[in-house]
């Protein structure tokens, strides 16, 4: 049963990483040694004063990265929570009422899933003003489909379960059935989906920002990385070590944390892997 152990280790590791990052995000003003907009001597090497040195305009990189956590996580969580809620609602509708509406929703989902969404996001971002709100809206628009599809197929399975029929038979209204019988069974899936979506958004946002389409004012890790990447002397000087690596590692760590947690959750929720042994009398 090493699988279970590994699973627990990965899960806790992931949770640990996320906990740290979330703490950093929340307490950024307390943790960060400086205001990320304050300027000091530019391109300082790491020192006791500036643990990660300063960037090309003299901002303290450590503080920038700490505040970047805020931006990145804020985008990721805002988008994934909203997208998940929308996706779950639409998935429920599509799955529960197999009418025209459901059919329509699923067609839209199929179509959206077929169109390469990141390319469309890049194209849209190119057309729109660079702001984190625009990004958030775009990500939400393209973020709910997978959830809707997964929730719908789960609802379809649940709907054919006898206990749903039973509830109907016992006099439960549709709303009652959805709230009491369908939704609670969908929630675990949705949680996993939330985690997956959050990690998608982290990567996608970092990517968009790396392309210089992020919000340059509210600097996320991707934007910090982009600035470092665009710095002409980045490869020749050693600055990549303290300017490029930290935001890069933060992105990777967040994704990793989310992946681990998502993986552990999925393993735990996957009924295939859970064998109930023996029945208690």
């Amino acid at each position: 049963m090493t699988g279970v152990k590994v699973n627990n280790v990965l899960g806790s590791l992931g949770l640990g990483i996320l906990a740290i990052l979330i703490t950093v995000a929340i307490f950024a003003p307390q943790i960060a040694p400086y205001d990320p907009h304050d300027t000091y001597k530019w391109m300082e090497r790491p020192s006791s004063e500036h643990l990660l040195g300063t960037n090309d305009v003299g901002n303290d990189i450590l503080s920038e990265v700490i505040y970047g956590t805020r931006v990145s996580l804020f985008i990721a969580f805002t988008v994934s929570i909203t997208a998940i809620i929308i996706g779950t609602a639409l998935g429920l509708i599509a799955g529960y009422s197999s009418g025209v509406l459901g059919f329509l929703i699923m067609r839209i989902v199929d179509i959206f899933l077929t169109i390469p969404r990141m390319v469309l996001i890049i194209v849209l971002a190119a057309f729109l003003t660079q702001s984190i709100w625009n990004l958030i809206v775009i990500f939400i628009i393209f973020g709910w489909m997978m959830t809707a599809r997964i929730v719908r197929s789960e609802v379809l399975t649940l709907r054919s379960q006898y206990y749903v029929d039973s509830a109907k038979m016992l006099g439960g209204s549709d709303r009652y059935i959805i709230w009491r019988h369908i939704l609670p069974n969908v929630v675990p899936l949705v949680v996993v989906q939330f985690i997956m979506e959050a990690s998608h958004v982290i990567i996608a946002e970092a990517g968009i920002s790396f392309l210089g389409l992020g919000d340059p004012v509210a600097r996320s890790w991707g934007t910090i990385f982009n600035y470092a990447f665009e710095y002409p002397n980045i490869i020749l000087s050693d600055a990549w070590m303290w300017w490029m690596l930290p935001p890069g590692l933060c992105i990777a760590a967040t994704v990793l944390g989310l992946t681990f947690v998502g993986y552990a959750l999925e393993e735990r929720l996957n009924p295939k892997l859970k064998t109930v042994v023996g029945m208690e009398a």
Partner: protein
Amino acid sequence: MHYINKLAYYLVIILIILSINFFLPRAMPGDPLAYVLGENPDMPIRMTEEEREMKLAEYGLDKPLPEQYVDYMIKLSKGDLGHSIYYKNPVMDEILIRLKWTLLLTGTATVIYMPLGIFLGAESAWARGKKKDTLSLITILTVSSFPSFVLGTLFVIFFAFKLGLFPLGCANTIGATYANPLEEALDILHHLILPVATLIIAHIGGTYLLMRNSMLSVIGADYILSARAKGLSERYILNRHAIRNALLPIVTMAALTIGFMTVGTIFVEKVFAYPGIGLLLYDSVLRRDYPLIQGIFLFISIFVVLANFIADMAYVWLDPRVSDE
């Protein structure tokens, strides 16, 4: 029946993509003319009302929307994706000259990462719970959580700059004269290795995990036990019975991954200055060369839709249960 349904479905998708493309600049805030003529932040275009009218007429932007739509469709049907503002060339031409590099890059990466991911996923699942499985699981999850551009940049710094093992970028040595085709091929390969490696690492995780999960559910299936009961060897069972079944979800996924790939190349091409379509999209975005951006979007989308279509067909071929419906 199935084919016709699918075909109709994909035609609808393409129609929708075309429409998105048509409405995008028209629905955006700002002057639609700016999306055709481009912008110049240093020296804004100067135009009198008259010139403006003339330009609008020239691009057919003064007509009513439905008429514009029809014109747009007619143009597209002739393969005309419009003119790039920057290159002053047909968008299609600009895409086509870069296509080979992107195809080379994504093709090579796909040809490697797909089978590799499938192989590793299958092996991992087959050895579920063992050290081998755990190790590869953790390694792959960890490595693939690095976005491709972070990974690629680190590769450039280490392998290209610090160690000097590979070139810093580009698709071949510029201006080089080759003694023979082999030399040229080697040069191209030398330039290809780092970007391909980046793409592979960035994309292998998805395939690996999917295959592993898919395989895990196959392993528990009764027909695997049944195959064992027949006395078949483990290898044979894995190859003949397990993989094909486990591949089914992968095939559906493959098309999606091709979509991801095309996006992945944007980052990799930027990092490695690889002259493909991704870099073109990036540059066009920087230059706000809207017709080119739209053209590339259209091109990639249709490419991905086609890939989906092929995957769907492959699915039918792989899963006899579907073809009967």
